[in-house]
Each structure stands twice: as C-alpha cells, then as structure tokens.
C-alpha cells in the first residue's frame, strides 16, 4: 500500500488561482443544467398563479372570486385570510409587506389572491377573472410625489456626519448646489422567479426556490404558515441569474407555493410570466440627490452636504441598508474634509424596491462623480485632474464620512496604471481636436475610479457555514450556505477545497445549497459569497485534515510535522500514500471524515445611530476609461472603447473574476444608458418586458474592450487566499460611460457648462442635455 502505483503529479487540477471554467459550463451549453422549472414534475402537481391589483393605491371594498373558482381547471383559490401564520413577509420584521393584500393595495400589481389549477394556463386565465371593488386613494408614485404627499419614510433614515459642515461650506472659496436624478433598474435575471413546494408528513415541506437566501425563505415560510423552521427545507442548486433580485423577492413565491402545497397536500409550482414578474417584484432604487458643495479654486473639495432621497416603494424591504450604502459610497474614492450625508427612504405607491448588485452603492457613487463634475466645470479643469486631486491619501486625508480609516488605499496606483495603459491624456487631446472640426458628431472620454466597501453593513450577516464529507473512496462532498447564481461561487469554493486537501477538483462534488445541511445562512449578497463561504469550507477541511494527520501520525508512527498533503497523496515520513488510501484507512480506524466549518469576518463593527464604526473589512478598487461618440441631432451614441483595470487582490480564479468584471461593467452601462423604467400617471409600470425595457445586447458592447486584473496586489486583510470580492464593485466602472457622454455633451458648449446629465442617459436625455448646455452658453454669451 505504501508504494502503490499512483501518479506523482506536482499540482492538482482545479487548485486556487487556476482560470477554471464554471463548474456547470459543460451542462449550460448542452441544456443539461437543471433549473427548477426543468425538474421532473411530481405526480399531481398543481400550478399556481397570482391575481394582482390593477390600482396603485386603493382600499379593497369587496373581493369576489366566484368566477375564478368556477374557471376551467381551478382547484382552489387562496387569499391572505388563508395563511395559517402571519400574512407578512417583511424581511425587516416591520410587518409592512403582506403576502397577499387584504384591505388595501399599495401598488399596481400587488398580489391579492392565488389560484391553484391543473395547468399553468388554466391558473393564468382564471387569475384574470376576479371581481374586485376598489375605493381609490391618491397615489404617490415617485420621490417628488411622495414629498408632496408628505409620505412617511419606510425606515429610519441615516445621517453620516464628519467635520463641521456648515463652517466648511461657508468658508469655502466657492460653493454650488445642484440636483441629480438617478434611474432605477430591473434585474432582468433570465430565469424568472419560481418556486416548487412538495408537502411532507406533519408540518414538513420541501421548497425548491430560485433564491439567493434559502434561510430567509425558510423563515418566511415558517412565519406565514405558522410552522417551525425545522419542518422546512429550502433547496437551490442554481439560479438563472439573481443580481439581488432574488435576495428577498423569492420569498413571496416560495410562501405561496408552500401554502398551496400544505393546504392541498399536493406539490405546487409557481412561475409568473415575465411581465408579471417585472410588475410584481422590486427593483434598484431610483434616487433624487440634492447637493451643496464647497471647494476651492484649485478644485479641492472642502465639504459636501447632500440628501439622497430614494423611491422605496410601498414597504421597507431592504431599503434601509440600501439607502445606507448609498451614503457609504457617496464619497467613492474622495476625501471630504467635512461631510453631512443624509438618506430619505421615501414610501411610494410602487413596487417595493430591493437589493440590486451594488445595493445603493452605485447610486452613491454616481452622486460622487456628479460632485466632481460640477467642481471640474466650475474650475475649468479636466474632471480627471479634479478626481485625482481629491483622492483619499496623504496626511490626514484617509477618514471616511462614517469615520472608518481607509487603510488599504491603492486608488492612485490603479488610476495611474489605467491612465498609462489606455493613453488617456493623448486620447483626450484627440477627442478635443476632433470635436473642434466636427459639427454633428461629438466624441467624449472619461476615466472614473471605484472604491467599494466589502462586508454586509448588518454585521451579523458576516458569518457562514460549510459542511464537508469525505467518503470512503476519497471523493468529497461539499456544501455551504452560499448560492450559485452564475457568479462562479461554487467553483471557487471547490477550488479552495481541492487546494486544501490537495485533490483534483473532479473529486469534489458541489452540492445544492440547502437549509438542511448548513443552517442559519446569510444571503449570497454584498459580494461576500466567496469571502465567507470559502473560509467556512476551508475551516471544515482543516478540521478533517487535522484528524487525518493525527491518525496518520499514529498509524505510521511518524511525527505530525513529517506529514504533508501532496497532490492526491500524503507524504507520511519517508513514504507517500494515496489520499484515498489514507481516507479508507482512517475510516477503518473509526476516524470522523465529516466536518462543519464556520467563519465570521473579523474587525468589523458599526454603530448606526452614531454613524461611526468600521462597517467594511476592506475595500475593492478599480478604474475604467470609456470613449463615446454622440450624434447631436438625435442624442444617439455608441461606446467605442473601454479600458478597465480592476483589483481583485490575489485572484482565486482569474477567468471567473474577469467574467464578473466584464459582466458587471455591461450591466452597469445598461443601468446608466438604455435601461429606463417608466411608470404612467396611474402608477402602472409600462416597461415590463424586454420589448420595452432595454438591457444591453451584443452590439452595445464596445468594439475595443480591454479588461485587466490589477497586477501585483494582495488583500492586506487575511481573506481567503488573499483574494478580494468581485461581484458588485465592477458594476460601477460603468460610471465612465456616463461621464464620457457628459464630456461629449459638454463639448457642445466648449466645455464651459456642466452637462448635469441625469440617468439613464437615453438618447433623449443626451439630446436635451445638449440643448440645455447650448442654451446656457448662448444665454451666458449674450448677458
């Protein structure tokens, strides 16, 4: 056994740092990866559909569901009164989010009842037949209307304050005020919301849910059905995209499925049509930002006083932490000697806005870049010069508005690297030269930075668990609390395990996330999936490895120091033994080959009331330069070239990380350009399908698109193999596109007037910004 024939390879396949393909790639391309709707359907499956409000704000005077019940194929109809537990799925516990509305509806599309029928088509048709009598109430659909109506806040606002803002603004040599409007965004995950519930004995129910947060689905089902968590198992192998849209938004569908399954004793599945999915579920918050900035003649900012008002929708959902994070990122990479940043999370009669990649951070950073733009045009300088002038760094310039010291700042290096790589200065000159002679077509270029704080600001979420088994044949079963939505979490954690045991990754089976294996998990969100679950899985591996070492030291009578894990084998003293053989021997010697692992992020703390603490373990950095070409007759534009340098620390998987950067950038570009949510005066969302809501397509990406991982960097904190989180930060690289458009618009008035280009910068907004700067320039010239 000791010298059995085995391959003495010098490295394992699928170790950390390898640019490994997504673990399901070969199944994705063959149509063999199973999503919930692809699972074989249990016998007797009933299909569910939701009946929705067709008013934005109204009292429900009467509900008659007789015609629904009588419709072909209908098995049952349920309303809020049928929930055995509490008719509420508010993730904050504020009790402001009914599963099914009973006496009042607060947005157009709010679910009121659920139909169970033989087929999905039967259920869909029946759901249209309700006779509901409403007494209309005045709707308040956006920030302006909510303020006008003196609408309440959905949650406590946050104030961040550092320095004497009044004094800073008053003493600043220059000062200006302005307003910025930032649009929202639909997630447009390609796989819509879906849940399949299978009833068991007693209170038991198993729910297959496309969710980023199985534990919360478990809690919500328990709460709404009045049963204990231990009766509920929630499983998710993969989502067809999440982006934050399945952090809380999956709860409704899972609860409804579980309700029908338990009431009817039959499996129940719900999958809304795309349009209904977009109408029902929350989106990225749109914001109105009012700002007051003090600065000096060089363009150095002295103080920023800003209010970030958000359309939160009818309930709190995650609007508290989202609007908090907008403030945490209203500095982006810039040091404000004095700052007062306030959130205004407004209730509106629209869908309840929710998590979306970046979680308020992008809106904060769009604000920061507008502040910079204003100062640049006011001082007549290149915006990049103003950006660099205000970067964190240097004596006493390293404390954020929330009193965290920025310890790992590399933004100046990242920007300098990008500036060189993309030849920013020469291209800026070329753009200006082009614009001098081109009347109709204008070009624009901009380079913007990203600094993004990593950790849940709700400190308790920064924990994770994992479960690792080794079977007698040496194959490994891996489970952890993180969910896979395409971001490559599963393969990254499997790489961590393969490296830990020094076994080829094909020996590691990645298994579906389930509340039955790892309990009390956090949402896979805040870019934290790998940081948390990678560490938890590593802890589990280390526990088993310690047992194997103890066992081997004893069995082969060598000191523990002489035992090492080599690729697919162990060195034990002077001999090498195959990993599987050691495992088998350990089993025979009654050594436990299974372990949980646990991790909690160190160092972080946050006192929300005081607005002080260290909410973030570390920061991720990046920068992007974009060049655009704009038609001043129509406002149409193209992104011609993009260069990105992004910091992922020491990458666990450069291919996966690159995919996150490219994909995040394009998603951010869509948010800031063509993706426009449009509600009519009655509060109906009219952009509720891909025919009307335009996410980027293949031809929208720049023909020149250079993406580089920042070289020779690490994470100064002891994260998993010194890597950095990458899910959200790259989205904000797209700010460079907005500012390149702004640069092109500015050229229409000889760069003298800040374009104040709001988002999304559709051709219409671009054209009107051009008209505005031209009008102002003309007015200025004539006065």
């Amino acid at each position, binding site marked *: 056994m000791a010298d059995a024939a085995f391959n003495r390879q010098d490295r394992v396949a699928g170790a950390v740092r390898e640019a490994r*393909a997504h673990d399901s*790639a*070969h199944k*994705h*391309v*063959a*149509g*063999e990866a199973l999503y919930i709707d692809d699972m074989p359907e249990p016998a007797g499956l009933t299909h569910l559909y939701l009946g929705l409000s067709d008013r934005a704000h109204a009292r429900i005077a009467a509900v008659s569901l007789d015609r629904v019940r009588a419709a072909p194929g209908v098995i049952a109809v349920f309303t809020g009164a049928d929930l055995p537990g509490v008719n509420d799925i508010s993730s904050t516990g504020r009790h402001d989010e009914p599963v099914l509305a009973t006496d009042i509806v607060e947005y157009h599309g709010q679910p009121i009842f659920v139909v169970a029928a033989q087929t999905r088509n039967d259920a*869909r*048709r029946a759901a249209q037949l309700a006779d509901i009598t409403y007494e209309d109430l005045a709707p308040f659909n956006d920030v302006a209307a909510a303020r006008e109506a003196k609408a309440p806040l959905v949650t406590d606002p946050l104030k961040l304050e550092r320095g004497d803002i009044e004094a800073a603004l008053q003493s600043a040599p220059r000062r200006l005020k302005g307003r910025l409007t930032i649009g929202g965004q639909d*997630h447009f*995950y*390609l796989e*819509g919301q879906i849940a399949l519930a299978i009833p068991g004995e007693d209170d038991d129910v198993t729910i297959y849910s496309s969710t980023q947060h199985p534990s919360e689905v478990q809690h919500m089902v328990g709460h709404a059905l009045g049963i204990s968590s231990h009766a509920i198992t929630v499983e998710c192998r993969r989502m*067809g*995209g999440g982006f934050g849209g399945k952090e809380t938004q999956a709860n409704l569908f899972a609860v409804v499925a579980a309700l029908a399954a338990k009431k009817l004793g039959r499996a129940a599945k719900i999958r809304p*049509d*795309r*349009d209904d999915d977009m109408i029902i579920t929350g989106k990225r918050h749109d914001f109105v930002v009012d700002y007051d900035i003090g600065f000096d003649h060089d363009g150095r900012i002295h103080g920023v006083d800003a209010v970030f008002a958000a359309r939160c929708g009818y309930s709190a959902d995650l609007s508290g932490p989202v609007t908090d994070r907008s403030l945490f990122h209203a500095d982006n990479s810039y040091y404000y000697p004095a700052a007062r940043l306030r959130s205004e999370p407004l209730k509106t009669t629209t869908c309840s806005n929710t998590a979306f990649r970046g979680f308020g951070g992008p809106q904060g950073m769009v604000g920061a870049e507008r502040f910079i733009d204003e100062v640049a045009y006011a001082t007549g300088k290149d915006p990049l010069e103003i950006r660099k002038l205000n970067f964190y760094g240097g004596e006493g310039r390293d404390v954020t508005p929330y009193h965290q010291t920025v310890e790992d700042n590399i933004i100046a290096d990242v920007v300098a690297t990008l500036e060189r*790589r993309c030849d920013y200065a020469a291209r800026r000159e070329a753009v200006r030269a*082009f614009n001098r002679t081109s009347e109709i*077509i204008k*070009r624009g270029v901009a380079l913007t930075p990203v600094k993004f704080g990593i950790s849940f600001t709700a400190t308790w979420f920064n924990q994770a668990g994992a479960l690792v088994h080794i079977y007698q044949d040496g194959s490994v079963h891996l489970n952890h609390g993180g969910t896979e*939505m395409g971001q*490559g979490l599963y393969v990254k954690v499997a790489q961590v395990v393969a490296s830990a045991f020094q076994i080829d990754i094909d020996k590691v089976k990645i298994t579906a996330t389930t509340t039955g294996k790892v309990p009390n998990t956090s949402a896979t969100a805040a870019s934290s999936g790998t940081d948390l679950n990678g560490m938890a899985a590593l802890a589990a591996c280390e526990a088993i490895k310690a047992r194997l070492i103890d066992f081997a030291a004893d069995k082969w009578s060598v000191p523990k120091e002489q035992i090492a894990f080599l690729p697919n084998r162990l060195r034990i003293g002077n001999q090498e033994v195959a990993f599987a053989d050691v495992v088998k021997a350990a089993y025979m010697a009654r050594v436990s080959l299974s372990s949980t692992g646990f991790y909690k992020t160190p160092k972080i703390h946050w006192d929300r009331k005081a607005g002080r603490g260290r909410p973030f373990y570390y920061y991720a950095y990046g920068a992007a330069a974009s*060049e655009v070409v704009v*038609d001043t*007759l*129509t*406002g*149409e*534009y*193209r992104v*011609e*070239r993009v260069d990105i340098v992004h910091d992922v620390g020491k990458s666990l998987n450069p*291919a996966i990380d690159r995919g996150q950067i490219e*994909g*995040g*950038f*394009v998603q951010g570009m869509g948010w800031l350009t*063509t993706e*426009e949510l449009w509600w009519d005066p009655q509060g109906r969302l*009219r952009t509720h*399908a*891909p025919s*009307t809501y*335009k*996410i*980027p*397509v*293949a*031809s*929208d*990406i720049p023909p*020149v698109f*250079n993406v580089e991982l920042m070289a020779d960097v690490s994470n100064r904190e002891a994260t998993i193999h010194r890597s950095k989180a990458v899910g959200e930060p790259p989205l904000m690289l797209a700010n460079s596109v907005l500012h390149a458009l702004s640069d092109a618009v500015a050229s229409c008035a000889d760069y003298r007037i800040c374009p104040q280009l709001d988002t999304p910068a559709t*051709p*219409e907004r671009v*054209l009107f910004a051009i*008209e505005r700067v031209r009008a102002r320039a003309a007015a200025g010239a004539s006065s």
Partner: protein
Amino acid sequence: MRRTIRFLLGDELREITDCDPTATLLDWLRGEARLTGTKEGCAEGDCGACTVLVGRLDKERVRYEAINSCIRFLATVDGCQLLTIERLRRADGSLHPVQQAMVDQHGSQCGFCTPGIVMSLYALWLNEDRPDDARIADALAGNLCRCTGYQPILQAARAMYDLGARAIDPLVANAADTAQRLAALRDQETLAVERDGRRLLAPANANDLARLVMAEPRATLLAGGTDVGLWVAKDLRDIAPVISLSRIESMRSIEDHGDAIVLGAMASLNDAREALAEVHPHLDELLRRFGGEQVRNAGTIGGNIANGSPIGDLPPALLALGAEITLRRGPGRRVIPLEQYFIAYKKQDRRDGEFLESVSVPKLSKDSLFHVSKITKRFDEDISAVCGAFFIKRGQDGRIVKARIAFGGMAATPKRARNAESMLIGRAWNDESARLAAGCLAVDFKPIDDWRASARYRLTVAGNLLRRFLIETTSPEANIRVAGGLQRATGRSAARG
C-alpha cells in the same frame, strides 16, 4: 384535410393529432416532449432563451433558421425539421464545436440564456463562414445575456470555426437524406388542427387559402407569428379560428419586375432584406434592425404591414417610396397604394374574405433621393420611438417636384407629413427648405409621451432627421451617424490596447 401535424424532431418523425391549435412550440417541447434544455425567458420573442432551429425545404435544399419557439405555434412546424439544444452533443458524448467554444471562452455564467445563445451560434456556424464581428453581434441581437456582458460569447463565435469542420456535423452529412424525408412530408392537403371546437387551418397553396379566407372571414390570419404569437403567449387571447399561411411556398416569392421589387406577403424580413439591399441600402439597414435574427427569420413583410401597428417600421419607409399592395379576395384582386390601407389605429382597409398577397416596392429613379432613420433607445432589437422615411424627386432645375415624408411613432398609424411635403414642393433641396419643412412637423403631428420617448423628443428628432437627410444627401462624404447608418462612425479609436 389532414389532421396530423408531421415534422422531424431531430431525425425522428413526430406525428401529432391531438393538440391545442395554438399551443406554442416551447410549451410542447418543455411539457410534452420533456426537452427542457430550451428555456422560457420572456415568452415574447425578445430574449432568445427559447431559440431553436427550424429546417425547411427551400428549393429542394434544407434551410436552417433560428427562431423563437415561445411565440411559434407547434402546428406551424408541419413539414419542417426541428432542432433543439439536446441534439448538439456528438454521438460519443463530446461537445459540438459551438458548445466547446462557449466553454473554452467562459461564455456562460448563470447558464439560462446559454442554450438559446448556443442555438443562435449554431445557426451562424451552419450557414456562414467566419463572419465579421458586426455580423456576429447581429446574429446575436435576439439573445439577451444578463451575466457575461457578451464579450466571451463573441470570442466563442470567433473561435468556434477553429474547433471542427462542418462535415463533422451529422446534420450536414445527412442533408440530402433529410431533404428527401421533408419532401416526402409535403402534400396538398390542408392541415386542420382542432380541439374543443377551436381550429387552426394551414392550407398548402394560395388558392386553398383564398377559399378558406372567404369561408371563414373572421379567422385570424397567421403569417410569421412574431406579433400574433404574443396575443396568445402574453394576452391569453383565444384567436381561433386561425388560418396559417406558413405552408404556402408561393407566397414567399420575391420577384424583380424591373421598376419594382415585388415581395410575396410571406417573404421573411431577412429574405426581403437580402432582395432589397442592392436597390435600397436604407431598407437593408432598417430591416437589419427589425427585432432579433429569430424575428427576422420568422416575421414577414406582409405581417409587418397587415397588423397596422403605429410602430411597425416598414410602413413609413414603404409609404415614402409609394409602395402598392395587392389584396386578394377569392379569385379577385385589387391593388391599392399602401397609404390607403391604414385607416386608423389598428384599423385597416382589409375587407371580409380578403388577404394581403404581395407588396410592390418601387425602385428609385436617378433624380430621386430616399432615406430612412430609425430612432430607438437601444440600437438593435428595439422598437422605434420615431421612424422617419424621406423621399424627394427633383426636376431638371433641381427643384423638388415630389416629396413623400412618412413617420412611424408620431401618430396612431404610420402617417405622412403632408404639410412638410407641401412646403418642399417647388423649392431647392437645401438648408432653408429642410428647416421650413421641419417647422411644419408640429402641424402634421401631435405625438404622445410614452415609455419610448416624450412628445417633445419625438418632434425635435423628427425635425432633426430632415436635417440629417439633407446633410447625408447633399454632402455624401459626410458620415453623421454613430450607428445604424450605412457605415460605422468616423474616427474610430485606436486598436485593441
């Protein structure tokens, strides 16, 4: 009457007799056939997750096209070969070059759009050899991916040609055999699919069609289904009885009549594009921007006109060109200017028993200018906020003798700008006349605010498009479009850094 739908699912003959006449192909694949690799993303033909290939006999060869199975009725694949993602793996289980390229280039993340993307790439791989990047992006315009940002997918599209020759694909190797099998499925019987008194009829030839439309004047006429499919998939409308034109080969014909191109109503948007490209480069580009590739393969010229949508893109262009349409009723026909066909919002001059048979698109004379601009939020696969089409004819003295200006998105129907046109008559084609004509547009149109654009933007842009027309026609060197023009913009930046 034949009551059985017959088609090849891969190599297997499927015969279906009991089926909902408007069951979608996607629902049948996922539900009945349990082929769940094909996904539903939007059920309206915009996201491409449901993309499959349909092979049909075209001049005795099998022609494969990507289509959206979510808005295609099962009954309309009668006589075709249907290919889904499940057939791509090779016999030994290894991946097809298209699939392997996607894996190698990290072209999938969540994987949900991936089968559709692979099928669109597969169609490209089968039909075209190493297309350029613009063509690749075009072939993928009907496939949304929310994860990758497309870069690795485009790389896969470039790399897939290096991973295996076409001959390795059994589909290519068996082409002749497949053609024979499909030919054997052809007949002259009308296909009748019926359940619970709801009927779909698919006649095999135009004369049978004419008789059926006379007999069932209230029937829904189904062409490519890229609009009608949504009435069912989205609005859950019962559109029966349905008369499908899908089997009538003669109505796909495209003929050059010397002074005009005559398009059969069933000519696909892609086929029409090819035929019109030489004659009207602006129509080439306009048609390129219709929906995605899948919609252009399925959607028809006749359907785009006959549904009378205020935002159909072809009607403004055809109005400006002075196109005529032929309507057939039984054995009789009438020819009318297209303009007379559009009466009001979603109301057309189609009489009981009539159907649109063909469209005649005039060619340009030397003294004429023609130009189209489509304005959208997103360049590809988007519906017009404004679509402007401009035609002028000048006399010997250079003065304008005829003007036809038509817009989509500006009124309840595609509509001509009569005041602007009158303003141009007798004037030279210059800055002043363009400005004066633009000034008339506010009289001609009272557009509305909606999600595609505000009324103010629509009016502003409509006027500016006249200026674009002037600049592009009077200084042909001037390239003033950033995209969607006949060439890409000038001053393209330095190459890949």
